[in-house]
């Protein structure tokens, strides 16, 4: 046994090994963007603004965490925005009729989970392609939210609920704390649990995973259900901030979430992705928007900048990964 120990290559400390080279690259990207805005925008690096950036990134980060798990499993979830909308209008409607906050909350998360379950079952058992399934539910879920509300916003979300998601603890917004906790849980799931390894395996090689006894359907469904629940959670942050639930909320959320995951190193081919990277990716997008807004750059140009940053990030990723 002693020679085994002698020949075992030294493993870096646990904390470091979970922070990959790819994540370091994303972090460097974030630092560069922060440095550029710090030079251009006075007050960009003030504590208050940094907290603003985190708060503004929190919704996208929350969605992107679920998206990352789905992408790792080899899928995609285009229906996150409408899922958020359904859960927002349902939760708000329950709250307005006086249902206790915890019950409304669970109902909202439950409907999010159900939306994810439908996606997962259609992908895993019916065998449809994830892109098509969630493209279909993107419209279906949106329609349900609109039909349910008659197209009108649900107003008058009670203060108790709002302060839960829009308040702060010691100056840190609750939304940031919630997303941080979710991110940690997602990290544990991916790095430390069998289901995390199954996600990576199924996305990496589904056929081999099946032969090796991985529960394929369960794994995929889990990813979509988590994505649905996190979409619901993200909608709570939004209605907490606005005090109302619009059936059209969450439009194009899926694209920002995919962008954050991709910038963070997730491969749309599946089998690869990073929780740390996704969070950094969401902050990069948030910091960009924050900085450009402070510079009074028009919305059109903000959109342009966001698009370019995604393309540049992907090209750097490709170039540094090398061949083979």
């Amino acid at each position, binding site marked *: 046994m002693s020679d085994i120990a002698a020949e075992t290559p030294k493993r870096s400390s646990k904390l470091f090994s979970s922070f990959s080279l790819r994540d370091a690259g994303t972090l460097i990207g974030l630092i560069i963007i922060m440095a550029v805005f710090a030079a251009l925008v006075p007050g960009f690096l003030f504590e208050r603004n940094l907290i603003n950036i985190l708060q503004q990134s929190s919704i996208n980060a929350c969605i992107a965490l679920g998206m990352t798990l789905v992408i790792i499993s080899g899928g995609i979830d285009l229906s996150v925005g409408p899922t958020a909308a359904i859960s927002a209008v349902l939760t708000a409607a329950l709250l307005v009729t006086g249902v206790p906050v915890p019950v409304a909350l669970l109902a909202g998360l439950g409907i999010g989970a159900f939306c994810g379950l439908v996606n997962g079952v259609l992908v895993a058992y019916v065998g449809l392609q994830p892109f098509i399934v969630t493209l279909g539910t993107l419209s279906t879920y949106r329609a349900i939210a609109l039909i349910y509300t008659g197209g009108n916003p649900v107003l008058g979300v009670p203060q108790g609920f709002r302060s839960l998601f829009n308040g702060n603890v010691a100056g840190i917004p609750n939304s940031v704390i919630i997303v941080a906790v979710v991110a940690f849980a997602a990290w544990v799931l991916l790095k430390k649990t*069998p289901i995390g390894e199954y996600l990576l395996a199924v996305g990496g090689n589904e056929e081999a995973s099946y032969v*090796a006894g991985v529960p394929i359907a369960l794994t995929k469904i889990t990813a979509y259900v988590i994505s649905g629940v996190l979409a619901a959670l993200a909608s709570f942050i939004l209605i907490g901030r606005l005090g109302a639930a619009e059936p059209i909320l969450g439009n194009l959320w899926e694209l920002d979430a995919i962008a954050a995951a991709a910038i963070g190193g997730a491969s749309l081919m599946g089998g690869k992705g990073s929780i740390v990277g996704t969070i950094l990716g969401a902050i990069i997008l948030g910091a960009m928007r924050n900085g450009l807004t402070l510079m009074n750059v028009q919305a059109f140009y903000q959109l342009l900048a966001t698009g370019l940053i995604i393309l540049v990030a992907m090209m750097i990723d490709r170039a540094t990964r090398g061949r083979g």
Partner: protein
Amino acid sequence: MTTTARLKFEGITKTFPSVKALSDATFSIKPGEVHALLGENGAGKSTLLRILSGVSRQTSGEFYVDGKLATFKNPEDARRAGIAMIHQELQQIPNLTVAQNMFLGHPLKTAGGLLVNRREQEKRAAAALAMIDPSIDPSTPIKNLKVAQRQIVEIARALLENAKIVAMDEPTSSLTPAEFESLAVIIEKMAASGVAIIYVSHKMDEVFRICHQGTVMRDGNVVGTVDLRTAAQSDVIAMMVGRELMHEEHNSFVKEDVRVEVRGLSSAVTHVRDVSFTVRRGEVVGIAGLVGSGRTELLRLLAGVDKIGSGEISIDGRALKLTNPRSAISAGIGLLPEERKREGIIPMRPVSLNMALPSLRKFAKVGVVRHSAVNTTAETLLKRVNLRPFQIDRPIKLFSGGNQQKAIIARWLAAGSEILLFDEPTRGIDVGAKSEIYHLIENLAAEGKSVIVVSSELPEVIRLSDRVIVMRNGRIAAQLERHELTEQTIVSHAVGDAEPNTLSSTQEHTHV
């Protein structure tokens, strides 16, 4: 004036990051010559053909077509130089018609190059097909044809292109004897018109029947070129196999008690029918048979990958209900799949986790995988299978085929599997790793595990097995005891000498 060689290889070498697949291959082929390329799987034949057909490029060395240096950048260059490849695994597009497939990539045009002249294509395709099998209609979609007919389409395509060199990789693996006869006639005709033909086949009778010269390859080296019209078959086989590995003593560890009992097993999805056999503790049972005889499909049934139609599998007297690989794994069955890349490895994950994948729950405590436990087991087991380089955190895709195979073996050791199913365990891996895997299989048997090995390499089957099951057309053709094992007996049962028409081995021919 001496005739220039139609094809001349000079020192062709191909190295991959971890293996030398082909080393200094030198030989030539004259116009009108039917030249056999002989050797076991992994000998380097396919690598050479891939280089010839422009699919991959040699690391060093050169080759000449009609005395002209060939520098193919892609398959299209090779095609233009008059080289036609007929692949063992047919590379056709199922939804297109026979004619469309035959003209794929360079269609006949009309209307100034704007439109495809389908009528003319079908006319020429029909003319080429008529030389072999006039019953094939050029306007039917390829997917409606039987495998043998699809093979004929490929050959007709080579005729159509007026190829100077036609390379055939196992062209008869799915042909009936009658179809082989017509192929032999075609080959003779093509050769008579000056075409050089490279013929790759494991069937020695066919090779001796139609080939003039033969180049024997072994482990990436050219052993020599022999005149097949005068050479003895046994000498050629000796050249092909001639490695000490195969002469190592077979060690037997068979115990009394029967561990696996299979009764009347039939597949719900393939042509495997009514298979019954037993495997004892410590026994290594080989499964031999032609490609398509149902060997792999039988293992897939036992491993829960394919759905069982009828019959029963029991382990230690307990009947199993296999619904998926998971249920087989929990019953103690582990499968080392034939296609390692597609069905074995998760390329980007570390070796350690590839090993632990089926048994992650064993390594988990309150739902959290203890990576330290995974690593401890990985260190012990990957050491045992002699993983090289010994880096358990490295993604498995960075290892050579042989080492990937070792990791998959370790996977089932980690899962505590008692019944191990090896499907072509040494395909495409180098001799050194081969020998290690043989020893591993022996060690497993010595520990009391039961092993079933499917292999196309007869010397391997004979080297490893205590008993051999020969399959033919999805059924067991014979069960041979150790003392009965010779290549001759195995082959004659696999081919079914007594009933020549059963040679056709795919299910399309056996209507059930």
